[in-house]
């Protein structure tokens, strides 16, 4: 719930038959499985879309889709359903592991090439990528001396890629897990929004990429952040994405999954490293 403003206007919950339609559409277009108990998610995410279209409720959106083929609305529905609300420095501990182990190791390994590449997969509006950019700026000043740092965020959703590239965040968004001292240091105010500073933008770029399609033009990465992404896919797709992510890692590179995620049963080629109360993975023999 949101505190400090009126409650969201209540609406008619999505009907089972309408939920199945959305479920099928999302599955076909993004390979993401919406579990049966996620009807509330359809309600909460499609309600703003219903309002913007002047429709009575979420059922109205599905009725409209069923009545006539509307590729643009289909895309909007898929994007709304596959968009995550993200916070900065999410779960905290993975960022401690990055700061104390993963990045220092990568800097030692890459001392000759002086290049550091990090991938934030399914980056949504960019909070994870920018959090890493802040972490580097705060803790590794040596990177300013001749290092080529490349932070790449990718997302299925074109609107999210545009927003991440723009780097303009609402107050609600900067409230989410971003320490106030870092907000005032790295963001400037534009009306009611906050714009990410130049130093962070210079190291980040965002591109549209569907994880279930070929990954063209992606380099190898020293760090792959694939956190809370696999939970949306079926077993086979999970396996495929994970094994491709491992191939995308530079020798000695690190992979991070979500706090509640494990590669067990999905990929045999990874070994777990425990650090700072969290787990990350390296390719075996890598």
């Amino acid at each position, binding site marked *: 719930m949101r505190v400090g403003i009126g409650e969201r206007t209540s609406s008619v919950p999505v009907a089972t038959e309408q939920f199945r339609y959305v479920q099928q559409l999302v599955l076909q277009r993004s390979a993401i499985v919406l579990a049966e108990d996620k009807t509330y998610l359809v309600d909460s995410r499609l309600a*703003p*879309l219903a309002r913007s279209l002047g429709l009575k409720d979420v059922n109205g959106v599905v009725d409209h889709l069923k009545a006539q083929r509307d590729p643009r609305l289909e895309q909007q529905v898929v994007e709304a359903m596959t968009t995550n*609300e993200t916070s900065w420095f999410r779960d905290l501990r993975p960022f401690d592991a990055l700061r104390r182990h993963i990045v220092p190791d990568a800097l030692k390994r890459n001392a000759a090439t002086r290049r550091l590449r990090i991938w934030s997969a399914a980056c949504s509006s960019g909070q994870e990528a920018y959090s890493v950019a802040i972490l580097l700026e705060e803790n590794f000043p040596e990177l300013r001396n001749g290092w080529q740092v490349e932070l790449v965020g990718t997302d299925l959703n074109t609107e999210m890629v545009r927003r991440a590239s723009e780097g303009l965040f609402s107050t*609600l968004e900067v409230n989410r*897990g971003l320490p*106030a001292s870092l907000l005032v240091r790295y963001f400037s*105010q534009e009306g009611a929004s906050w714009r990410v500073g130049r130093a962070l933008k210079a190291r980040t770029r965002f591109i549209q990429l569907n994880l279930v399609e070929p990954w063209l033009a992606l380099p190898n990465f020293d760090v792959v952040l694939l956190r809370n992404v696999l939970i949306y896919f079926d077993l086979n797709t999970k396996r495929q994405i994970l094994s491709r992510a491992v191939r995308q890692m530079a020798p000695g590179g690190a992979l991070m999954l979500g706090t509640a995620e494990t590669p067990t049963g999905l990929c045999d080629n990874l070994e777990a490293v425990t650090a700072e109360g969290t787990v990350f993975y390296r390719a075996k023999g890598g």
Partner: protein
Amino acid sequence: MRALVVDDSRAMRTILSRILRKAGAREIREAADGQQAIELLAVGEPPDVALVDWNMPNMNGLDLVVALRRKAEWRRIAIVMVTTENEHSQVVRALAAGAHEYLIKPFDESALLEKLAILGFQMPEEPGEPELADNFAGGTLS
């Protein structure tokens, strides 16, 4: 965790207290302004964390932060400003005065829980998928 909530809106104090309980707070005291907060603090153990509004009658939140930082036994209190004041310069002022964190109203419940986690007050572990939390607020579709 012991907590102090300072806000002149009773409704806001109730909401903040409820979220604090979720975050594991056992003892929560409430004050309607800075002056009342100082009086409350004169008795009992100091809290671990204080949520402080900015605009209040009698003594405002910024003055309360300054007062809390002056006294040795209150210096360990982690302070989060929770306010509608949303200017960059105001966040800077609050931090300079000694607040640790700053949360701008309106905010999602998760936002306060995350601020508390930054300060080391972790919510008791809950099972389930973290991403698909029930408190989704539709923030990314605006």
